[in-house]
């Protein structure tokens, strides 16, 4: 598997070359959000706002009103939980094109509960005018600046940093509000997002070997959530649907899929894999994936539950887990 490093940083520098209105605002964490190099290349377009996120969000709205395109950089958790009123009244109500680049989504930090952005999608999905993207790999990170720009309104990006795998072909960019079909089948539909897609991919091959017909789809646009290929896939799945997200299971991808099932009258069973109505603690990604049940083996168990079959799959049967070393908070 190819691993790409600091993709967002490279893309933003390239983007800024063509888009003179693009400016970066950092709440003292730009360097921890891999854009240290942007400051070196464009010192006049990197606005240090200090550890003061509320002011940063409203300030960005002022810049936006004068024609700038602000890209706010800090950890995702500080871009929704701490600033929700500013986000809504200064930015989303007037529908201004401010881009919130929120790093360390879900469990992607050893920083513990204060640093883990675990209910952001639930909080942001009910906000009018807001668009939400969840990055799954390097190809998506390479696509997202253009896609977010074209939205021409407030955008929240759950961004992955540093070493990110390339799961999807480099020439197949993210398409707005369009799920990627990674495997086609009719027994079970698996819909995954963020880092859970890599986990699901580890399991799908083995599930197929066991004779199951698996539809696996990766979602990166969480709002809007109106891609017709989703209900089409769900409608034909014999046993039901499993969603898998790096987020609590209330209000995120799983809930969005539940709405689709109910509103379209599809009448399929749904198992929502994700963080089960709890806060998390600080530890490594591999530990947290297992502890909070976001991993491939949790998916295997869900498939067994839906099909009523024991599959006898062990961890060692799966594609190897990719070691990810992150110690930076």
């Amino acid at each position: 598997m190819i691993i790409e490093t600091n993709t967002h940083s490279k893309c933003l520098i390239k983007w800024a070359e063509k888009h003179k209105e693009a400016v970066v605002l950092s709440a003292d964490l730009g360097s921890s959000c891999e854009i240290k190099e942007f400051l070196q290349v464009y010192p006049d377009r990197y606005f240090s706002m200090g550890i003061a996120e509320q002011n940063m969000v409203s300030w960005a709205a002022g810049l936006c009103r004068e024609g700038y395109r602000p890209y706010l950089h800090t950890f995702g958790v500080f871009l929704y939980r701490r600033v929700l009123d500013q986000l809504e009244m200064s930015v989303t109500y007037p529908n201004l094109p401010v881009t919130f680049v929120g790093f360390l989504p879900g469990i992607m930090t050893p920083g513990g509960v204060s640093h883990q952005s675990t209910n952001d999608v639930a909080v942001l999905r009910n906000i009018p005018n807001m668009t939400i993207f969840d990055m799954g790999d390097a190809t998506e990170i390479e696509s997202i600046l253009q896609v977010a720009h074209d939205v021409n309104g407030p955008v929240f990006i759950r961004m992955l940093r540093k070493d990110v795998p390339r799961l999807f072909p480099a020439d197949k960019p993210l398409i707005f509000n369009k799920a990627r079909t990674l495997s086609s089948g009719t027994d079970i539909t698996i819909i995954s997002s963020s880092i859970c897609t890599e986990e699901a991919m580890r399991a799908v091959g083995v599930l197929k070997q066991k004779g199951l017909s698996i539809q696996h789809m990766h979602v990166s646009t969480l709002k809007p959530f109106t891609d017709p290929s989703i209900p089409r896939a769900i409608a034909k799945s014999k046993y039901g649907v499993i969603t898998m997200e790096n987020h609590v299971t209330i209000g995120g991808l799983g809930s969005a899929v539940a709405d689709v099932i109910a509103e379209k009258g599809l009448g399929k069973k749904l198992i929502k894999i994700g963080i089960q109505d709890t806060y998390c603690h600080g530890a490594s990604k591999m530990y947290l994936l297992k502890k909070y049940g976001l991993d491939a083996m949790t998916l295997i168990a869900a498939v067994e539950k839906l099909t009523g079959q024991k599959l006898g799959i062990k961890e060692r049967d799966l594609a190897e887990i990719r070691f990810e070393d992150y110690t930076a908070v």
Partner: protein
Amino acid sequence: MEKRYTDAEISRVATKIRKHILRLAMERGGCYLSQACSSADIIASLYLKILNLGPSLGSMDAQPFPGVPSPKNMDYPKGSLYHGAPAKDKDRFFVSPAHYASVIYCALAECGRISREAIDKFNVDGWNMEMIGAEHSPGFECTAGSLGQTISIAAGTAHARKLQGDTGKVYVLLSDGEIEEGQVWEAFQAAAFYKLDNLVVYVDINGLQVEGYTKDVMNTEPLAERFEAFGAKAVPVDGHDVAALVKASKTAHAGKPLVVLCYTDSAHDVPLLEKRKPFLHFARIDADEMEQFKELYEQM
């Protein structure tokens, strides 16, 4: 449009603004009247003498509510139209305490930027002249009802205008209660850091808030020292002295924002409110007081 107003004329306009709002308070059972008492001289001075605004582009009449902003509704008439077309040499005026909306509408009317008849649509269902408006409301550049955010939006705007080399300034009307919000201090910290000498903030310090005197609810003084400590130039003035309000706008403030601390009286021009202090957030006029207030109204 370019009439030169004397200080006495501006004071007279301020009294007329209060008179409109007293009428609304009598007709509608209540209004944000004390805010007019405290701020009308500041707002009249800004509109008639201090601000450099182009002719209004807003409708002279009140308008039906144009809908909330959305991807399908971005071209609705904005409240900022009443401040004229944005231009490099023109000023901008942000109102932070959205509860002062009635004062702004009446000031626009007295300055000829909206009709006096439009005031009749104040707080009437389905119209754009809400009691606490948003950026579609006449005179509002942004959605300001949640206190403490407008100063950051205005500072961001001033930052952008400085980068673009505009010569016009960004003015903000701030109220004193909202200074308790931490975001206001974050904004001044950053405005001083970015040396925003194109940012001018008029603060209506009436010393009252919903639950009583500001000094008892949450003391914010000494404000001049606090703003100076945060890197701004602070000038205290009598907020009912038009000459002082105008003179303060000319204070040199190279490399830093200017804050004009306007000390005001929430019963100014309406002494009947005096005995209600400190509970003047929303002034209701009951039937048994109506005659007294009517008498005062006729004299204004």
